[in-house]
């Protein structure tokens, strides 16, 4: 009986891990994409998602739209938020010769602006429309597919669709190839007539859009609050660093590893030691991030696996 309960719990954990890693994969792939183009870690990336947690809440509760339909406006909102950051802040700063530290500070400033917007919308939805906007979730608004919550099917599917379409876009379309050229060697790409600015702006739009889609789905799975952006950011950074920060597919892998490590790690530790371990969940991505930086600073993609196998085996 007890054994069966354990197995049941493990299956539930596994389901949670699949959902969380799928969402994290999309977030870290977006962060990595903008890091590859603009060479700056975007500290406002978590807010692109959180902004859409509240846009989604308004859509679902006020207009009775399905959260899955909400993915379309969420992609646009997230994309535009990211595009504004690039065009109005980062691009002018780069043109003035700002270095990456100044760019990072600018993303923190933008993070503050978005955080304020998020809190203002949370307050507004709460005071004017009487919705619960702090520590809420929308699990009841999910559909049921094959006896499972819809997100369990949709999230991995989305992550898979995202990685294939990014692959096709970057390798099989003319603009995608131009974008890779702009990432590899901006000056040379400019010489052959590639519009670098357009390529970079596109990468920011895609990055923000992916985060937006994650944001609208998040309340279906976890408890949301205006300040979850920074919690997400720890996981996103950990996943992206593990993936090497210079490889989108690495970021997908990193997202999967961090997602599973966080959910399964917290789950099994709380079964073994008691529920008090649950709040310490962000320690797991932090430790993985630190270990990566110490032992493999270029991430999983940078490790010479053949040498590693030879040494270990």
């Amino acid at each position: 009986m007890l054994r069966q309960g354990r197995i049941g719990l493990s299956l539930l954990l596994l389901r949670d891990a699949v959902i969380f890693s799928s969402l994290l994969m999309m977030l870290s792939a977006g962060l990595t994409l903008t890091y590859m183009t603009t060479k700056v870690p975007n500290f406002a990336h978590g807010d692109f998602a959180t902004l859409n947690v509240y846009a989604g809440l308004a859509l679902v509760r006020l207009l009775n739209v399905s959260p899955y339909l909400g993915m379309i406006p969420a992609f646009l909102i997230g994309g535009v938020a990211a595009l504004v950051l690039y065009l109005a802040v980062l691009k002018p700063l780069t043109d003035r010769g700002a270095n990456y530290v100044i760019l990072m500070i600018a993303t923190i400033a933008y993070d503050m602006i978005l955080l304020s917007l998020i809190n203002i919308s949370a307050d507004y939805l709460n005071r004017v429309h009487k919705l619960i906007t702090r520590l809420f979730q929308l699990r009841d608004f999910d559909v049921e597919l094959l006896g499972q919550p819809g997100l369990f099917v949709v999230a991995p599917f989305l992550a898979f669709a995202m990685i294939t379409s990014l692959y096709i876009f970057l390798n099989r379309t003319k603009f995608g190839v131009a974008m890779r050229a702009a990432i590899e060697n901006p000056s040379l790409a400019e010489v052959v007539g590639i519009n670098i600015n357009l390529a970079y702006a596109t990468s920011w739009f895609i990055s923000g859009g992916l985060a937006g889609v994650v944001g609208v789905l998040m309340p279906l799975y976890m408890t949301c609050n205006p300040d979850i952006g920074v919690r997400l950011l720890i996981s996103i950074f950990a996943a992206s660093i593990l993936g090497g920060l210079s490889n989108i597919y690495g970021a997908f892998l990193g997202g999967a590893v961090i997602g599973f490590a966080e959910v399964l790690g917290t789950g099994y530790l709380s079964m073994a030691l008691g529920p008090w371990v649950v709040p310490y969940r962000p320690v797991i991505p932090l430790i993985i991030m630190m270990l990566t930086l110490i032992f493999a600073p270029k991430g999983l993609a940078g490790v010479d696996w053949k040498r590693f196998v030879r040494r270990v085996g």
Partner: protein
Amino acid sequence: MPIPLPITFLIDLLTLFGLFAIISMSLNLEFGYAGIPNFGKMLAVAGGAFFVGAVPGRVIAYMLDVPTSLDFFRNNLEVVSLVNQALASNPIISTLYLLASLAGAALAGAALGYIASYPGIRLRGDYLAMTLLAMAEVLRVIGDNWEPLIGGSLGVRIPDPFRWVGGEYRSLSVALTILGVTAAMFVYLELVSKSPLGRTLKAVRDEELSARVYGKDVDRLRVKTLIVGCAIAAVSGALYSFLTASVSARDFNRVTHTFWPWVMVLVGGAGNNLGAVVGAGIFVTLRRLITFYKSYFEAIVPFDVVWLEYMLLGLALILVLLYRPEGLLPERPTRTLKRGDILRVISRMKRKEEN
């Protein structure tokens, strides 16, 4: 004799100014002089405060023979009031307790700085920035949940080293202590910035490769800078705890203790201690004025006005970065040696050549 109201207002303002000036000067040492983007400033500030919440209170309770049946956290109020009674009549022990706590907080901050710098210091600054931000958040999570540290989410009250001053003049003496520490830090950092070490830090910041070529151990210098910067910021956190006579993890967040110091340093002018101080002064004064007029807005908008203020701060910082990146008080060129010293060096070299 009661202190008149305008003076209390001024005391509050100066207290806040001192606390933030210490943090912004420490950030200026890290970012302005050494070019380290410390996006986890909160880590050291909270670390200093957590140390003061966790250690000195227990130690002094033990030394003053508070019955061991009383637990520092579960019987927090009783223990602290017993200790406070003893401290009220003993200025010397009170002062020793204060100084030892500040020193301990600085050591705790230094240790945190070392740990935080370990994984990312050899890599480009953005890796360090990401780890520092993550560590600061995790420290806050630990402070909020791990009860043996500072009593978990309830926080903890700590013995008050200003109890012997008493009543009306407590806030004045706290303010003077904080301003004294601020002045001491300012003098120390000015000396550092004018010393060979200060010039080396600027060299590392501006031209890392050249500094390496000239044999400077860049990584060691960065670690040292973070250790000193974190120790200084931790003192500010400790002073804040003594001001409120309590410690709670919820008092620390990345808006107040990371973002604001960045605004102060960049508005005032990075690479210039006076700039950091002026930035803190302007910032604290402006915020006080905004708080003063806030009630007018509070009635007409359906959200907390504080967010409007944070949004304006974010916008202001972006505008400063775009249109006045050097800040109000730009960094001045490093002072070289006096003319006499240079002539002496030249003549010594000539003599060597002749030999």
